[in-house]
């Protein structure tokens, strides 16, 4: 099986979708001839033609609106928001329109659209190229949210997202595009070669939305993570020697609650990790649900390790990023209660 980086896997997912379904249309800023600022759509215009994959004006609201209209026509649009930090001008079209279309029309129309966007920090992008806004959108009924942590999942989840008849926000951890990253920013950069989850089939397959994956079995504590933080969690578990079970959520909405509660009931402890700011991040929902469903199994409060409640500061990227040291400390605190 070929080895792919995450960016190649994402490219392959779109290539496959374009090949199989003539209704797939892809557009976004710089994604046509140029192939995207991260090369996610590299060569796709050359392969599938300008009518199906093309550049869009710098107008995130217009891009999502056009996708909603195309969806109403019967197309299956996939759009790119160049950085998740730039999704806000599209908020109204996402929340008031795409998310609610099926509901407000009694099922007569819907928005089978996928909104891809690189998110997260770790590339010195400062406060406007590093954000993790997923939490905001998890509050909106009608949206699905998927976030891959490796090339295999990236391709399978993205194909699932494109084929899904509901609007899906697909956030791509940009720090993982070219290699896994465990938060040790001072060590040499790795690429995906040789990584288990970098073996990616060439053709069509899906990783279903709504199914988490246990990436590490353990008995002492459950770590809930997604995206880059899965790798950080793995690293923290190794480094502390704590017998942590790690669940890669893969989809935040719908949430695979069964996998979570099963694990926490077993371990009795839970740490939630995300890069987004803490207050009202998706970690809050996870902590709330874990204590709702596993209260009597819990031996310690659910801890959250997250970005601080500040914008992402350029020079203090690594003080901001919730790396393995901070996750490790939380693990120690939690298992020692």
């Amino acid at each position, binding site marked *: 099986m070929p080895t792919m980086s995450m960016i190649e896997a994402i490219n392959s997912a779109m290539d496959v979708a374009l090949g199989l379904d003539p209704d797939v*249309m892809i557009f976004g800023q710089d994604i046509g001839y140029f192939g995207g600022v991260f090369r996610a759509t590299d060569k796709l215009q050359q392969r599938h033609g300008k*009518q*199906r994959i093309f550049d*869009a*004006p710098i*107008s995130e*609201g*217009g891009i999502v*609106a*056009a*996708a*909603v*209209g*195309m*969806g*109403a*026509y*019967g*197309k299956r*649009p996939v759009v790119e928001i160049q950085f998740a930090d730039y999704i806000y*001008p599209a908020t*109204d*079209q996402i929340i*008031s*329109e795409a998310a609610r*279309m*099926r*509901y*407000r*029309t*009694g*099922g*007569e*129309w*819907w928005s089978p659209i996928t909104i891809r966007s690189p998110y997260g920090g770790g590339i010195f992008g400062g406060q406007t190229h590093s954000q993790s806004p997923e939490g905001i959108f998890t509050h909106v*009924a*009608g949206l*699905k949210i998927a976030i891959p942590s490796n090339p295999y999942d990236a391709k399978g989840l993205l194909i699932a997202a494109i084929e*899904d*008849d*509901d609007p899906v926000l697909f956030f791509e951890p940009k720090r993982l595009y070219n290699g896994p990253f465990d938060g040790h920013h001072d060590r040499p950069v790795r690429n995906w070669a040789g990584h288990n989850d970098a073996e990616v089939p060439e053709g069509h397959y899906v990783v279903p939305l*709504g199914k988490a994956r246990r990436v590490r079995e353990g008995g002492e504590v459950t770590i809930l993570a997604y995206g880059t933080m899965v790798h950080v969690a793995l690293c923290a578990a190794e480094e502390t020697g704590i017998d942590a079970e790690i669940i890669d959520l893969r989809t935040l*909405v*719908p*949430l695979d*609650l069964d996998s979570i509660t099963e694990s926490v009931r077993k371990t009795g402890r839970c740490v939630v990790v995300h890069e987004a700011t803490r207050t009202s991040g998706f970690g809050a929902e996870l902590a709330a649900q874990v204590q709702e469903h596993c209260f009597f199994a819990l031996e310690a409060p659910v801890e959250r390790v997250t970005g601080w409640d500040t914008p992402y500061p350029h020079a203090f990227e690594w003080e901001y990023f919730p790396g393995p040291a901070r996750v490790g400390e939380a693990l120690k605190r939690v298992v020692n209660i």
Partner: protein
Amino acid sequence: MIRNSKGLHVPEPGCRPGEEPDFSHVEVPPAGEVVRPPVTVSAAEIRDHAFRLIRVLDDNGMACGDWNPALSPDMLLKGLRAMMLTRAYDARMVRVQRQGKTSFYMKCTGEEAVAVAATMALRHEDMCFPTYRQQGILLARDWPMVDMMNQVYSNSQDRLKGRQMPVFYSSREAGFFSISGNLGTQYSQAVGWAMAAAADGDERISTAWIGEGATAEGDFHHALTFASVYRAPCILNIVNNQWAISSFSGIAGGEATTFAARGLGFGIPSLRVDGNDFLAVYAVTAWAAERARTGHGPTLIELFTYRAEGHSTSDDPTRYRPSTEAGAWPLGDPLERLKRHLIVAGHWSEEQHQALAKELDEEVRAAGKLSESYGTLKEGDRWPASTMFDDVYRDMPAHLVAQRRQAGV
């Protein structure tokens, strides 16, 4: 010359309650004056049209000039009927709202031609992205009125399952896109629809409507940008009825220029038309539709009209404008003007008109009774409450199944 270095300029309408209505700033050029260019014309050649006013019907009910669409008496009567039906429908729905049978209603009185004439100039399979004031589209497309009423009542036969506020209709079959509460969003969606149609080599086109007030939203700009860039086959209508709830059109940016002019900056041919002139609205729509269908891209149309009644049942217009303003509005009433044209042309009489009015009232009353038998917002049948958890997603995810169970519905 206006100096604002000593203050902020805040536009004010010409008159306020208690004052005499003043439309002296409204120029009413003679009918037939504006030339009709070929549909292959470039935007640059007709920039001036954005500042003129295309009119066909003159004060005597005669159709003038080369925009005259020369419609058959049948078509004219169909149009008159649809406009009269719209008005009768509105009248009843406001009445039932006042009776407490539903929560809210919005009339389009005085603006019926804007929806009805445009719809008749389109093909049935063309797609409409309306606002809440184009109920005339549905009626012109012979969509069952009782279905519309069911929506207004949120009753057991409401195809929107009781989820939307009154008048936020949706009908895929009628090519009438779901109305959004959020102003402006449909405008850029309509362009996306047209882009998809173009990509498919589909002959259908899309048409969108927006109020002059809502043109201030970003979606309006996105729509014009995308329509211009991709030469989307669509018609972008601006319904300038001069009011946005309590704000006159100056607050929307109508003081310094026309709304049609907004299109000039995008190289989109832009027309300004007497929105109360059925023939003129029909003619410009047909022109724009032909342009779009033959691959010449979008057209922007400002429909100059006047919102003759309140914004909705929630509002009292006498708080912000003279109650006599509607009467003073110089472009008249679209129904009266078309009626007169038909009579002058010998296709219609006062008696026939009265008879039709009565017939339509009956039709509305019968539909109303039928719809009420399916329930109203406050009484009778409605959808089972459990359905409020449906259609959030195509398949109900576990958390909604759990919530429905918890709701005990």
